[in-house]
């Protein structure tokens, strides 16, 4: 069953008087609870597709249905609300907030998702997730004292702490060495399966593909 359906999605960028069509009519069903990998050459439009579906930028044409809601018809505040409560994000860089400790990063996400959890529930949930990503011992550490792999593990914990329905991952292993990449992918997979989180992941990393349930290849703004 599809958790997200894309119909005839197009995206055109304007550069002065010239126009460049990056997405040329994408139709896609994202299966619930599965990991779908988007692959393709640079410029094929995979990252643009991911960011539009995730509500980070607007499409030029087409529709995106998420749990019966047409995301393209919502205003920016409604989209932000969905991003905060029902989506999770992992980017190429961890993008942690520099002045918050590891556990505060997760607390911020819980505040943003406006979950009505008690203090104790929050504490327990943060502890459980940080233990899962093996970062509990670093709970009071600031990002500037963490390695690249550790930061990415915290970013993954932040992305799933509020139990989103879909996790969007844009090249989550691109800045990591092969050992760290494997760790991060295993972590993403185990969290996805444990919490039944649907994952849409853009990757160049061929080794990451073995963790995906489905692989979709894009070429010149179209799905092949």
């Amino acid at each position, binding site marked *: 069953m599809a958790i997200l359906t894309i119909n005839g999605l197009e995206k055109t960028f304007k550069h002065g008087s010239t126009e460049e069509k990056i997405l040329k009519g994408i139709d896609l069903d994202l299966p619930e609870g599965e990991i779908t990998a988007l692959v393709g050459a640079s410029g094929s439009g995979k990252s643009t597709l991911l960011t539009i579906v995730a509500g*980070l930028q607007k499409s030029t044409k087409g529709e995106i249905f998420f749990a019966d809601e047409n995301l393209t018809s919502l205003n920016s505040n409604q989209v932000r*609300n969905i991003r905060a409560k029902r989506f999770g994000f992992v980017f190429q860089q961890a993008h942690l907030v520099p002045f*918050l400790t590891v556990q505060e990063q997760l607390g911020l996400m819980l505040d943003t998702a406006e979950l009505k959890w008690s203090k104790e529930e929050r504490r327990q949930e943060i502890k459980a997730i940080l233990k899962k990503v093996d970062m509990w011992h670093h709970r009071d550490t600031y990002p500037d004292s963490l390695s690249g792999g550790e930061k990415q593990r915290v970013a993954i914990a932040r992305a799933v702490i509020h139990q989103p329905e879909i996790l969007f991952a844009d090249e989550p292993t691109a800045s990591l060495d092969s050992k760290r990449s494997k760790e991060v992918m295993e972590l993403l997979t185990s969290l996805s399966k444990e919490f039944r989180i649907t994952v849409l992941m853009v990757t160049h990393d061929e080794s990451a593909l073995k963790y995906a349930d489905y692989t979709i290849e894009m070429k010149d703004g179209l799905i092949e």
Partner: protein
Amino acid sequence: MKMAWKEIMKSKTRYLILGSIIFLISLLTMIISGLANGLSYDNASLIKDMPEGTFYMQEEAEGQYNFSSLDGETRNEIEEASSDAMFLSIQMGEVEAADEKRHGVAFVSTANSDHFPDVEAKRLVLDNSIMKEGISEDEKMTNGLLDHSLKVDGFTDQQKFSHAPVAFINHDDFQNMYRTDAFQLAFIEGNEAPVIDGLSQFTNDEFLNTIPSYSAEQLSLNMIVVFLFVISGMLFGIFFYMINVQKIATYGILKAVGVKTSTLFKMMWVQMIIITIISLVLSVGISQLLGAVMPEGMPFLLTLSSSSMMSLVFLVVGFIGSTVSGIQISKVEPMQAINQGGM
């Protein structure tokens, strides 16, 4: 609130610099304001300490009290309009003490006054600031325009005009000195301000501004104070702009994960308020301390209420400055941050 405080604590040096600059500018503003108030009081405490009311002078005087002359007939008209009307004349002059030392004073003669001392002929009551020049009670003072001496009958507190101590004298002596039985000004206390033909009316503040030295002096000092407020507002704007530019990636990512733009603005405002309040508490405290230790010859007057009012203005100016600079927060696109990379 917590996030704002966390950032301040993580970037102590950055916020310490901002706080120090705000502290120094607010301290400078308060000191200059204290001096402006002190000078203003030193210039015209005779008028400033009077109750609110209306001053009257001849229309022909065109707002210059020393050209005004209210003769007996006009005085009767004024008294008919208000039986409580008070009359006064002010002339700059000098008195010579027994040691032949001359002292500049403002001779003031009044009639029907409850606010000023009633002085007998051949006597004078002086502002007590003259005491430190060696003048004491019962001392005899002379003036070249009088053929008799004036005996010091007592002292008053804080009665100065045009930076000179006031010398209250009897109207007969004033008449002998300046060859006129007319008063320059009339004053009616309270809100009642009857219109009288041939006379122009002034509120207390309007009358103060007719004193040439007073308006020029206050205008200059108040301009400095206003500019300091403007500079501090711009400083807030520039500083928060620089901080915000450095945080574009963080803001973008926070927006990407769903943090509201209003939350980011609140964080910035809380930081502005924390920094400003700490700076202002220090500058109010130090300026009050300075007021207490200022040398006697330096007029300085800074009440807690005027310090509080200035603090409020600083908060408003800081709020405007940081908000204007924060407009860029609302323009940050999550994509911009994601593409920029970062921690």
